[in-house]
């Protein structure tokens, strides 16, 4: 039900207008505009160097654009320019309303502290202070991402790659964000581990009615997770549309090349 109502919502959650980023004289990202709606999953695909990771950093306010702007609808319903947010509002976004799943879990986790503390930390950052409740919620989330609750006191450095990635997802989702950014979330994992993670992410995203922006070079990931796709090349968005439409009926030469390069299953 939550998925249905959020997908029918007519007000965009995030709006990018004429976004660009230059590194010196090198344009990494040029004139990107789109709107993301609540509950919508957008995949950004393209090969290395296409500008997709730069775009993700611009969208998540980790990098300041050279031109253009990103606006986000805060929980009070007002669309605000990210560049003009105060420090407290930015902290709120990063700690609560947004999640960021890194390709390398070591970047998104604290590897030396327990799994329970990794999940609980985000809750404490938003004011939770009852140890028992924090631990219960952390246990629930470990279970949701299919980590044996018996491992709650172990540090992620003792976890496998797939478990670390699932723990990173739990840490991000525990505060019930409305938007999650994912940078190659299945990169570096074995194929069998990837399938399990993708299936898990797909279910969580639809159960929670999350909006997500997923950067991936893997078209299979885009097909399984996303509603819409943007294809990037040379810093520009060259093709965009419904995911199955772009993948089954690609229009641009580069998209046709990408699609035709997939090995049949």
């Amino acid at each position: 039900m939550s998925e249905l109502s959020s997908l029918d919502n007519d007000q965009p959650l995030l709006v990018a207008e004429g976004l660009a980023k230059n590194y010196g004289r090198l344009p990494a990202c040029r004139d990107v505009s789109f709107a993301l709606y609540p509950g919508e999953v957008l995949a950004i695909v393209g090969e290395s160097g296409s500008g997709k990771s730069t775009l993700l950093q611009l969208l998540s306010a980790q990098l300041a654009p050279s031109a253009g702007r990103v606006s986000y609808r805060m929980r009070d319903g007002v669309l605000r320019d990210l560049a003009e947010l105060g420090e407290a509002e930015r902290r709120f976004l990063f700690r609560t309303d947004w999640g960021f799943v890194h390709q390398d879990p070591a970047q998104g986790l604290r590897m030396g502290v327990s799994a329970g503390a990794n999940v609980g930390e985000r809750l404490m950052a938003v004011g939770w202070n009852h140890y028992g409740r924090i631990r219960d919620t952390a246990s629930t989330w470990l279970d949701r991402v299919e980590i044996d609750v018996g491992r709650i006191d172990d540090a992620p450095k003792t976890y496998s790659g797939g478990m670390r990635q699932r723990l990173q997802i739990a840490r991000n989702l525990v505060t019930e964000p409305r938007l999650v950014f994912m940078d190659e979330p299945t990169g570096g994992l074995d194929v069998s581990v990837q399938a399990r993670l993708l299936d898990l992410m797909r279910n969580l995203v639809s159960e929670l009615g999350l909006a997500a922006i997923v950067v991936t070079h893997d078209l299979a990931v885009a097909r399984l997770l996303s509603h819409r796709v943007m294809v990037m090349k040379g810093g520009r968005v060259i093709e965009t549309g419904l995911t199955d439409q772009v993948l089954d009926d690609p229009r641009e030469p580069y998209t046709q090349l990408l699609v035709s390069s997939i090995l049949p299953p």
Partner: protein
Amino acid sequence: MTAMIELANAEKTFTMHLQGGVELPVVRGVSFHVIAGECVVLSGPSGAGKSSILKMIFGNYRCDSGRIGIRHHGKVIDLAIAEPRQVLSIRRSTIGYVSQFLRAVPRVATIDVVAEPLIVNGAAREEARERAGKLLRRLNIPERLWTLPPSTFSGGEQQRVNIARGFISDLPILLLDEPTASLDAANRAVVVELIAEKKTKGVAMVAIVHDDEIRHLIADRIVDVTSFAAAA
């Protein structure tokens, strides 16, 4: 009667950029309509563009020109120019598509694969599963298989799971791409029954079937696709 689907001069050409930009015209001037409670069967030889037309009506293939009007929540939306969000909304609550092959989601149990379209539209999980079970039973999928993912099933079993998934919801439009292709006589008969039940509920259907006997049993009207052939 209300037209649920109305195509007017719909046209599709593939441009193969990797083959030096070769233009591959598929169909041109596609015009027909489907009213509620009617099953229109597309006929024509292999390669005439039947599946392409079905995919255009689902918004899976883009429509280069012309119009594909779909009645959605009481309004007509032109799928040829609809925003991705509108297409998603149409697929969620108006158009169902039964493809030839099940695109299996790894690890998901058969009963949940079938129940999913109902859950997405807000049904309670238990009720959705109960309806899924009824359909699977009708389609002769043994109960011991329901908790397994369908990826390990035989071709015919997978197709029946796919049919159950396609027929479970109460969507007003159904597109059927060879729904009986790899089924035995008993299961073909079940599909014919399911289609008849959908008609009585006012569902508009477009189907592709190669089997003459099945076509005869389900078709209210036949649209010959060869007249839409886009000669190069």
